[in-house]
């Protein structure tokens, strides 16, 4: 057995145990902390599988933003209600039986899956030069399967609208009450924020030829926005409602506009004219980054309904 295999086994065993303990932790705060660790280990899995794009996204979104959302939410809704009654034997065994059956079928099918080769990946790598960018994952996201990414930006937009919809307040981003963040925290944020914005910009720029891109950059920028809002200054609160809406929809509409341009010039939706492909992709990526970052900040800050908080307090 090689050392690498030992690492993989330890990682997978740890991941499974942590996942189970996170879901069934008696105290949901523990569940939230364990979920952060789960995201961290999953990011290590992506590192091991040589998928840095995913590791970046998982580190920023899975462990980072989702973790912050959970930590914040369990403060309000984490109080455990009455314990469930002791289940009958069937009640205990049946979920396990179903889950294990499903998992065994899935894992069994995958273990015995033949490697036939001839994947889409080879086609992508062969034709990446035609796309206008050099990094294959970015090429798939913005060119070869631009449709998916466009609609995915739409999903995020819908989620942001839905989160705003279930709140009681009509203010888009509720302003925090006067907060007394410790000076150490604000001073550290004074260094971390510019560093984070720089790293976000770097990830966006590097995405055209190396791992990184709009999603990862937006996640890092959103994390910085969340940091600011936790320190008592909601980053989007000072914007007028119109500007905020523009930020939210600019990614979706820019993508749509690029698609329509393709339809008019090249006769196919989202096909970019070869000469301008690089530029069009850059503009789309910029707009998409801004929109995703704004949506993620809103998903975090917008969900924190202060009136509800106080009623529950």
């Amino acid at each position, binding site marked *: 057995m090689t050392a690498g295999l030992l690492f993989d086994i330890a990682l997978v065993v740890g991941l499974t145990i942590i996942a189970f303990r996170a879901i069934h932790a008696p105290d949901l705060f*523990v569940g939230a902390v364990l979920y952060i660790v789960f995201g961290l280990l999953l990011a290590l899995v992506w590192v091991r599988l040589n998928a840095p794009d995913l590791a970046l996204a998982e580190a920023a979104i899975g462990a980072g933003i989702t973790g912050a959302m959970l930590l914040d939410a369990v403060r309000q809704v984490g109080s455990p209600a009455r314990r469930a009654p002791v289940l009958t034997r069937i009640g205990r065994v049946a979920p396990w039986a179903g889950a294990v059956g499903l998992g065994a079928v899935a894992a069994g099918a995958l273990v015995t899956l033949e490697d036939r080769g001839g994947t889409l990946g080879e086609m992508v790598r062969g034709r990446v030069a035609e796309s206008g960018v050099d990094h294959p994952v970015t090429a798939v996201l913005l060119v070869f399967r631009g449709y998916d990414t466009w609609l995915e930006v739409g999903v995020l937009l819908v989620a942001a609208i839905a989160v705003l919809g279930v709140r009681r307040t009509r203010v888009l981003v509720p302003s925090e009450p006067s907060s007394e963040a410790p000076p*150490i925290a604000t001073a*550290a944020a004074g*260094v971390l924020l510019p*560093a984070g914005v720089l790293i976000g910009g770097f990830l966006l720029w590097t995405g055209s030829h190396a791992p990184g891109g709009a999603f990862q950059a937006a996640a890092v920028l959103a994390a910085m926005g969340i940091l600011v809002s936790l320190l008592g200054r909601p980053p989007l609160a000072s914007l007028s409602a119109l500007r905020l809406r523009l930020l939210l929809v600019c990614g979706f509409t820019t993508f749509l506009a690029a698609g329509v341009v393709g339809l008019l010039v090249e006769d196919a939706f989202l096909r970019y004219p070869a000469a301008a492909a690089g530029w069009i992709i850059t503009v789309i990526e910029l707009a998409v980054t801004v929109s995703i970052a704004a949506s993620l900040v809103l998903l975090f800050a917008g969900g924190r309904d202060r009136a509800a908080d106080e009623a529950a307090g």
Partner: protein
Amino acid sequence: MMDPRDVLTVLCVLLGAFFFFAGTLGVLRFPDAITRLHAVTKADNLGLGLVVLGLALQAASLLAVLKLLLIWAIALLASATSCFLVADSALRGQGERESAG
């Protein structure tokens, strides 16, 4: 005969791993949250620093060395702040809320 640079890398990384081990030991064995914080923050950042130093010796370019040092610098700043915040929250009593685990 190993390259002296490789020897240095091995030494630094091993020493770094030792400090991580010491930090984990402290977290598991020290009696309360404040002493455990002390173990985590000091031992881990020294450990990370030594690993970074060891790997910087292997780095192919100056840019890679700078990136490694940047990682360590951000880690130092972030963990010093985190240490303060967790200790602050523990001392104010909120973090002391016993939670069933």
